[in-house]
């Protein structure tokens, strides 16, 4: 096995460079096919997203794939690669496995734990398979990377906390109301942000939506888009008690809702909890409302604060995830290594056993007077000799498997015992 990876990501290269080196998905198949047909290359995989471009190959043992990859990138992008040298990283063998596992598990992402990268990696894998560029160890490593990513997701909370403001609003709603089905949303003031938050809430199961806006037409428009109900701004307070979640983003220069008004709403609601998401600046909802029982008011800064805490939480989880990945890399390396030496071991055993049988056959004439016991003893004796001879080389083959330079040792043993490729 001979793996080599070259790549650049959001940490090593600025966006202009990543754009320049990007390979758009419709052309990915042709690019992989081009790469895999180059001299000495057995398998190839190209991953190209807005945050990273990576090309991985497995090549024949004696081939150094680095110049091939350089040439490929220079040809493909019609450029002089030396200008980009500083942005590139190179990984070999185990580092390649480690890198691919980390990428698929979203540990190398800009937002650690975001799941998109897994889908993109799967897509790259499918494309490479379609053009017949994956059929050996690299294929195995890549599909194992998906299993590892799944395990990381299952065993850590790396992807579970919201890292955007609008998702943080959904997550907080869930922390208050549990299941959102049957919950009513009230949007005050139509704006991009409130629209987005309402959309997320609806797709998380919230059932009814009311929209109110100073310009009634805009409210009607938005209500139609969400299949909700528009409420004239004058009637806002009469209808607000129906709402479990209120998203407010008016351009009003003063508070739209004050403590006393919300107290009345609560009485009408028999103290069922309410969640106010105030994304207006200046704020729409008097922060004193948060002092009321069963009411939670989050303004835009509060939401940002939650997002920050969530990101830190993800980083803590990433430490566990890295540990899982490291374990899995070790397992993968062992598997690949044993996969490599197995044919040699089998050939070796075969070869020596054949010699043993041939020699016994040659001496058959002289041995025909032996008793069955003696014959058995002779059999055990020769078998013992073969196993004793085999023991050394097999141990060497197994223990050194996967380590650098092992290929030459394998080669040497093959030559010594006359086992052909």
């Amino acid at each position, binding site marked *: 096995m001979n793996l080599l990876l070259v790549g650049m990501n959001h940490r090593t290269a600025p966006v202009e460079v990543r754009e320049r080196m990007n390979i758009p998905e419709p052309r990915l198949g042709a690019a992989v096919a081009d790469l895999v047909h180059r001299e000495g290359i057995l398998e190839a995989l190209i991953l190209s997203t807005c945050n990273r471009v990576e090309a991985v190959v497995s090549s024949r043992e004696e081939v150094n794939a680095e110049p091939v990859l350089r040439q490929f990138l220079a040809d493909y992008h019609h450029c002089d690669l030396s200008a980009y040298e500083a942005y590139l990283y190179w990984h070999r063998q185990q580092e390649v496995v480690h890198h691919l596992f980390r990428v698929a598990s979203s540990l190398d992402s800009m937002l650690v734990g975001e799941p998109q990268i897994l889908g993109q990696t799967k897509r790259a894998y499918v494309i490479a398979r379609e053009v017949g560029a994956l059929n050996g160890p690299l294929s195995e490593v890549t599909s194992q990377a998906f299993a590892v990513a799944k395990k990381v997701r299952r065993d850590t909370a790396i992807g579970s906390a919201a890292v955007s403001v609008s998702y943080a609003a959904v997550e907080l709603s869930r922390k208050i109301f549990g299941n959102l089905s049957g919950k009513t949303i009230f949007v005050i003031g139509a704006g991009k942000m409130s629209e987005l938050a309402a959309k997320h809430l609806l797709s998380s199961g919230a059932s009814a939506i009311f929209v109110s806006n100073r310009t009634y037409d805009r409210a009607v428009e938005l209500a139609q888009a969400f299949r909700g109900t528009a409420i004239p701004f004058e009637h806002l307070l009469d209808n607000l008690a129906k709402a479990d979640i209120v998203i407010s983003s008016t351009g009003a220069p003063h508070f739209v809702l004050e403590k006393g008004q919300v107290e009345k709403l609560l009485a009408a609601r028999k103290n069922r909890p309410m969640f106010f998401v105030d994304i207006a600046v200046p704020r729409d909802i008097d922060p004193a409302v948060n002092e009321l*029982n069963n009411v939670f008011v989050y303004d835009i800064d509060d939401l940002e604060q939650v997002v920050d805490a969530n990101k830190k939480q993800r980083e803590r989880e990433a430490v566990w995830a890295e540990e899982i990945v490291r374990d899995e890399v070790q397992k993968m390396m062992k598997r690949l290594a044993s996969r490599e030496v197995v044919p040699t071991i089998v050939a070796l055993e075969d070869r020596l056993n054949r010699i043993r049988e041939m020699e016994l056959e040659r001496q058959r004439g002289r041995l025909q007077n032996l008793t069955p016991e003696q014959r058995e003893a002779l059999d055990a004796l020769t078998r013992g000799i073969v196993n004793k001879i085999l023991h050394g080389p097999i141990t060497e083959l197994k223990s050194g498997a996967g380590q650098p330079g092992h290929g030459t040792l394998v080669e040497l043993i093959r030559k010594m015992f006359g086992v052909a490729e």
Partner: protein
Amino acid sequence: MQSTFLWLALLLYALGIILAFPSVLRRRPVLSPATLGALGLGLLAHAGALGIEASAIHRLPVFDVRSALSFFSFLATVAFFFVYLRYRIAALGIFMLPLVFVLTLISALHPEQNFNNPAFRGGWLLVHISSIFLGYTAFFLTFVAALMYLIQERELKSKKPHAFYYRLPSLEVCDNLYSRSLVFGLPFLTVGILTGFIWASRRWTGPWEFDPKILASLLTWLIYLVLFSTRLSGTWRGRRAAYIAVFAFAAMMVTFLGISFLSGQHGYLPKFGSNP
């Protein structure tokens, strides 16, 4: 034999609690099979201990402080399994089981007292005691739910999520568990107290109505009744109700344990024997 089983149960509970911690710390959505296995086996051992004692004294082993504690913690573990299977809250293991462990430990450390008094027989008494214990178990759940609610509510109000924010269930789930256990517990406590009255009025002479434990029970019952009715009307909800539920459970524990030592009729052994 019985205490061997009890110690075994204790050991398994401890193992279960220790195994539950990493799941909760690492925010696994559920407890590991090993945790549940240890707790389940612990429960079986506990049932074994209770069964042996019951067959020795030919009745429910709840007539002295030691067995009563053991019986209560057994029911609490059963309740844990019920609630865990229904709600799948890993943190429940951290909130419920340590108390179970401590109560079982006290019970196991207490010297054996073989209580056998023919005065303590009869159907009413059985109903009295089992209802009271079921009520206690339900209110233990109410207490745990209220506690989780208070912590989660504080996290949400503070707007700075800490460790608990990520590990505790939503307010809605806490509230749901809270009100269900309240609705479950109150009828049992009511039946328990009523049958206690009936039994006492038939068996006891003298001013048993002023027994401290009976008075304390009535007080606890009143608090729960208030919680229940304000919950129905919606006047008390959330934080305030949760605080009272925590207080009510503390009052109940005092009734259950503390006053047992002051009460004449409920004084358990050895004070009781000379008194009826």
